């Protein structure tokens, strides 16, 4: 490596942090120079998709200060290897959308996804400090689910209400159809004498009702013959 810039020269350098154990557990691979080579290749690939930077080679990407964490710094130099590319350019390359936005819904994922997948990691376990990750928007169905559930339950309730009211009305009518003449005298039973066959008889029961106490036999003792 020709450039061994320490952290003071970090203007155009990015710190990368990988959390292999967190992401992969037992299946975590060891971070060695081959993995570093792959990383350089991915960064170079991202840079090549930027207009005017199609000539970026793997050797233009420089890594240093690899720690056990695993974390390291990298810069991308221009073809002449004299100065480093500005951070903004590198950042835009890494965040470049993979698929052009067209009309309706399309996934606005960036090169980040390709890089993540190359290492079996995700945005949380492969961090580019200083490059904010674009978060995936949640998928929204056209009709919110809760309205559907609400509609179903509300319709059931309305139907049940209608049924109950209708059956109540029917019951009422059936009661009314029966003794329609008795209905009118019912109101006056409290204060008038019950008239049966035109002959008044004493009301034993002032509160009205269907039980004619004159014929209640449970408590009466039959007179012995």
């Amino acid at each position, binding site marked *: 490596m020709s450039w061994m810039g320490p952290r003071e020269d970090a203007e155009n350098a990015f710190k990368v*942090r990988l*959390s*292999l*154990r*967190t992401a992969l557990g037992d299946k975590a691979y060891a971070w060695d120079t081959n993995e570093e080579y792959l990383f350089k290749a991915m960064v170079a690939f991202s840079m090549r998709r930027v207009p005017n930077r199609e000539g970026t080679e793997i050797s233009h990407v420089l890594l240093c200060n690899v*720690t*056990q*964490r*695993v*974390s390291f710094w990298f810069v991308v130099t221009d073809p002449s290897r004299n100065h480093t590319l500005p951070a903004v350019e590198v950042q835009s390359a890494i965040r470049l959308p993979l698929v052009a936005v067209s009309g309706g819904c399309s996934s606005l994922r960036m090169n980040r996804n390709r890089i993540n997948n190359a290492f079996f990691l995700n945005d949380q376990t492969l961090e580019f400090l200083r490059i*904010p990750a*674009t*978060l995936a*928007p*949640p998928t929204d169905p056209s009709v919110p*689910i*809760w*309205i559907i*559930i*609400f509609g179903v*339950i*509300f319709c059931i*309730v*309305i139907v*049940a*209400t209608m049924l*109950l*009211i209708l059956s*109540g009305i029917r019951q*009422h009518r059936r009661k009314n159809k029966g003794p329609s*003449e008795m209905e*009118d*005298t019912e109101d*006056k039973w*409290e*204060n*008038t*004498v019950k*008239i049966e*066959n*035109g*002959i*008044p008889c004493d*009301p034993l*029961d*002032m*509160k009205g*009702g*269907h*039980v004619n106490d004159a014929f209640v036999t449970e408590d009466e003792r039959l007179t012995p013959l």
Partner: protein
Amino acid sequence: MVRLLLPNPGLEARIPTLAELESLEKQESSSRPKWDNKAQYMLTCVGFCVGLGNVWRFPYLCQSHGGGAFMIPFLILLVLEGIPLLHLEFAIGQRLRKGSVGVWSSIHPALKGVGIASMFVSFMVGLYYNTIIAWVMWYFFNSFQDPLPWSQCPLNANQTGYVEECARSSSVDYYWYRETLNVSTSIDDSGSVQWWILLCLTCAWSVLYVCTIRGIETTGKAVYVTSTLPYVVLTIFLIRGLTLKGASSGIIFLFTPNVTELANPVTWLDAGAQVFYSFSLAFGGLISFSSYNSVHNNCEMDSVIVSVINGFTSVYAATVVYSIIGFRATERFDDCFSANILTLINGFDLPEGNVTQENFAEMQQWCNASNPAAYAELKFQTCDMNTFLSEGVEGTGLAFIVFTEAITRMPAAPLWSVLFFVMLFCLGLSSMFGNMEGVVVPLQDLNVIPKKWPKELLTGLICLGTYLLALVFTLNSGQYWLSLLDRYAGSIPLLTVAFFEMFSVVYVYGIDRFNRDIEFMIGHKPSIFWQVTWRVVSPLLMLTIFLFFLVISVNEELVYSVWNPAYEEFPKSQKVKYPNWVYGVVVVVAGVPCLAIPGFAIYKLIRNRFRRAGDQQGLVGAQSTVSVNGDVRS
């Protein structure tokens, strides 16, 4: 024993005699509703008593007042206060066979105010209680998706991060305060009606209407589901909860006894208040329900059974709730610790896996020793298990924030969410049945409703009227209104009514007469336990709790908690003073029912004085008309 009995002329004329009771029951069997079977009655009463308070108030009280030690005052007061009052309400309803207004005006016309106060309180409580059910329905409707909507914060405009309000608090807080309530920053700021809550409120009132449309004829069927389902769900949650990591720490936290709390009078008063409110006494609903019983129903056994079930449910629900809270607290603790570990290894570029929870402290010291400057720049969070266990664990905070967060961390979260909110819905709905009964039947007894109107119409009008009033709770400031009503409508008036109930039955109706009635109904005279509690112990307890609450309420500053993103200590709630007009609302809400009792008595007194001459109760006139083979009166 002091045989104090206030003079009560005409009592015999107003109530059916014991001899008439059995025949009365037969005559009324077609016109008056009655229970299809004993199970319906028991389930309805249990459903009315067991409500949301058992799930979200009792566990909090238990944990904050010394854990296992709280059981002692709770159980003692359950026996000395809850059971006697319950037995009294059951017995008087069964004896006089009328709703609350009918019962109290039978005992003495001047006591009608007690029934009116009950009705008013039932109405106020029903008003806001059903709004809570509407919120439960909102969460229920939203539970049918994976991932649950409250598990993630929504993204901000340019999709680089989360919405600020959500990032500073949490996704569950944001979902509750912003996406559900869309709460304003003060009770003054009413805002507009939130249409989604309006829809849920409409649904809640419609469901309630369907279930109560014909009184106990329909609620009697509904309670087979609404009263039993919560127990099924609680059991499922218990099994699930106990298998989660950290559940035991929650249960240990809940039940660890702290016996010193028993010396604190507030513990006893809170226990008494909890017993009282959890039994749904003084609402009038229980009197009404038991008036539909047959005359010889064993109300003594019923009251003991219902009380035991209620107490058991409180403890059971507390266990379930705290096992889940323990799980959540453990998860948060682990997350907090992992964040600290990450900070350390990122700051010092240590390999992963070198720092664990066990060696964290020594690694910290090692790092500090090796590079103090760099170490000083690292910011660590404090991870305290006890803080996590005691966070916001009562009321709506428990159900809609803490528990929903715990659910998002469980596998198959939508299933648990659906189950949980179905349980809350059933608990709330079965309590609402009692509230509706406590409003509908007194209105019928008061004769303000024309007799011709069918019950369906009356229930429909009451549901509609209350629904329209409850639109207040769908405004942006709705939650503040609800907390206000909850604090004042359901507390002092109930205590007043309960005290007057006891006093009336024991000293106006007469304890001797009451004893004879119970002996007639269930076959044996109430034992010495009932005599002592009815005459002395329970009224004294009610009075003590009432005075305590009165003193506290009058002295405390009227402040309420507000969700204000602009507050410095956000996401903590800001405590703001109520505006002055709220005092007027409080006086109306708490004062009117309490004052209805003496108010009505005075009104009756004045009316009697003015109409002294010739205004006897109209004798039932018997007009006899002679007619032979004559006209059928039409």
